[in-house]
């Protein structure tokens, strides 16, 4: 008989080891899945995790790594703050869309005027777009106690429909020969979020992601606000006695997450994506949830987890190209990773004992 005994304090060793163990377990389970799909498991894992970094065409793929990791890290940093406080914003995808819409609206409105101020203004508007969208669940939570989980998620579908409406309607390219989608911001120098160093994939969004990592680290680990957030998540009662105002915490953590997600949307629409289309969003807001947990809600961990998750995206594309692995297989792979991670986490908080527990 196996019994679990609660540890007095979470194990430090296991809190570092579980993400690694989860990745290894996912590789094994993923290998089995690929084998079921008729692909050679070891070959598939090698194509996904090794080829994009060190293979023949690595030069191209390495650049893509930063392009994909940028938004994931940016969004996950914001989400982690809320998750620490026990506030579940799962609507980052919607906040990402709203940030992109707000900044693209400004750029398309200004077109074709060139100005140095346009790009910074777009950044501000992108953050505000995401922030305001996140304020809806935050205010409803504070005023009426409505579940932020359900409201933030519902708003993803609202944002997706708004995105499609904009792509087919108000923001449609007037010179687009009737095709849906806005003008391409890549052809509009003042609004284009171009690569900073050619071939590296490094654009302003990646810089913003690094800044977000540092900022989140200071906020969560070097500032009283971060301490309050963590206490509120781990011991809500103690936090109240210590004078933490729950309402303010809800507003701050949702607002922060919304602003970062909005920024991610802004950098994406002005850079790699280029235009508003109805298929602009590709699920970064949801994958970022996995990134946040895989990084153990710690900014540095999130940075590493974001790179790893970006690698699975790129490796997945590569495996699709060379091995004919269906693109959905990577989605399954990412989902499994979160499952294993959550499952293994029992080792962080509990000791596993063989044999019956002595009756106290």
């Amino acid at each position: 008989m196996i019994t679990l005994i609660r540890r007095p304090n979470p194990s430090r060793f296991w809190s570092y080891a579980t993400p690694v163990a989860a990745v290894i377990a996912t590789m094994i389970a993923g290998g089995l899945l690929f084998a079921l799909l008729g692909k050679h498991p070891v070959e598939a894992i090698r194509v996904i995790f090794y080829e994009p970094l060190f293979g023949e065409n690595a030069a191209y793929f390495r650049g893509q790594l930063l392009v994909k990791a940028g938004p994931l890290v940016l969004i996950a940093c914001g989400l982690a703050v809320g998750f620490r406080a026990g506030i579940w914003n799962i609507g980052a995808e919607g906040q990402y869309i709203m940030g992109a819409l707000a900044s693209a609206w400004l750029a398309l409105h200004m077109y074709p005027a060139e100005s140095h101020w346009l790009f910074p203004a777009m950044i501000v508007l992108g953050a505000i777009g995401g922030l305001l969208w996140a304020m809806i669940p935050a205010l409803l939570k504070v005023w009426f106690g409505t579940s932020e989980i359900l409201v933030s998620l519902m708003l993803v579908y609202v944002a997706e429909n708004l995105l499609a409406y904009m792509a087919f309607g108000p923001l449609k390219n007037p010179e687009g020969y009737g095709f849906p989608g806005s003008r391409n911001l890549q052809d509009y120098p003042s609004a284009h979020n171009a690569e900073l160093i050619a071939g590296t994939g490094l654009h302003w969004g990646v810089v913003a992601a690094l800044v977000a990592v540092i900022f989140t680290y200071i906020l969560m680990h070097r500032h009283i606000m971060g301490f309050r957030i963590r206490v509120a998540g781990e011991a809500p009662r103690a936090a109240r006695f210590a004078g933490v105002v729950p309402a303010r915490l809800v507003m701050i953590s949702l607002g922060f997450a919304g602003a970062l997600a909005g920024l991610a949307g802004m950098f994406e629409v002005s850079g790699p994506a280029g235009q508003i289309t109805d298929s602009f969003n590709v699920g970064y807001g949801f994958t970022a949830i996995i990134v946040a947990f895989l990084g153990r809600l710690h900014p540095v961990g999130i940075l590493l987890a974001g790179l790893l998750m970006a690698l699975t995206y790129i490796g997945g594309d590569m495996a699709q190209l060379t091995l004919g692995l269906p693109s959905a297989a990577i989605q399954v792979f990412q989902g499994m990773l979160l499952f294993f991670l959550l499952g293994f986490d029992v080792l962080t908080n509990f000791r596993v004992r063989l044999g019956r527990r002595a009756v106290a």
Partner: protein
Amino acid sequence: MIIGGIDIIGLIAILMSASTPVLLAATGELVAEKSGVLNLGVEGMMIMGAVAGFAAAVATGNPVLGFLGGAIAGALMATLFAVITQIFLSNQVASGLALTLFGLGLSALIGKGYEGVRPPPTAKIDFGPLSDIPVLGRIVFSHDWMVYLSLLLVVVVWIVLRYTRVGLVLRAVGESHDAAHALGYRVVAVRFAALAFGGALAGLGGAYLSLVRVPQWTEGMTAGAGWIALAIVVFASWRPWRVLLGAYMFGGITALQLQLQAAGYAIPVHILSMAPYVITIVVLVILSAIHRHGVQAAPASLGKSFHASS
């Protein structure tokens, strides 16, 4: 009866069919939450039910086996969730999200070969002359058997929860797992069963979408129906009859929205498509505003992990 270009009787008839997927999923989730577990993976279980049900129906040519397949797939997904949250004591919110993400991916993978395929039709029940009754005939006696089964399930869940020993134990586990444990009830086993039942119903709901409502398989076809089911349980204050009310209200909005699109109103399609989600939020807000100063309707142990030592 036609008002503003919209056939009201037709609307009510469509409403019942449009509501069935969320009604099934919400009824299942109600049982799971009554046992004290918050399973946010309804969307993932529904979409797996949709794809598995579709695959089973196409493979066997029998829609009944399809629904069975959908229910089994949903129950399996729920069991996975139960293992993670009840044995490995993982956070229920995070695990529910994981279940949804995993389900969306896996269903897309399985469903690749089924795009564009037509499933075997689910026959409507022949009520003979009953369906010729004006108004009533079209509203009540014009559906397939799943619509009636979903209504029957609501009644069964209501009776079991309210009047039977099984229901009492389930509610006890949901209200105070420590007290239930001290009385000798097997908390984890009860929760496993409740979750599996909830998963089976979510799977049925998903299969109804892919086999009857649409009827075909497309990636991500549940489009938030699982999340709306979760909202309906909150709206219903964890009571079966109110789940029925909530699901039919939601179905009504969906049906109305589709009819408005068909009637050619000058409202953009995408704006109309937002309606179900916006209204769900509005209803949630009204409900939470009412409950804020009233009784706590949620099961007291909802969302808390149970560990026998603590």
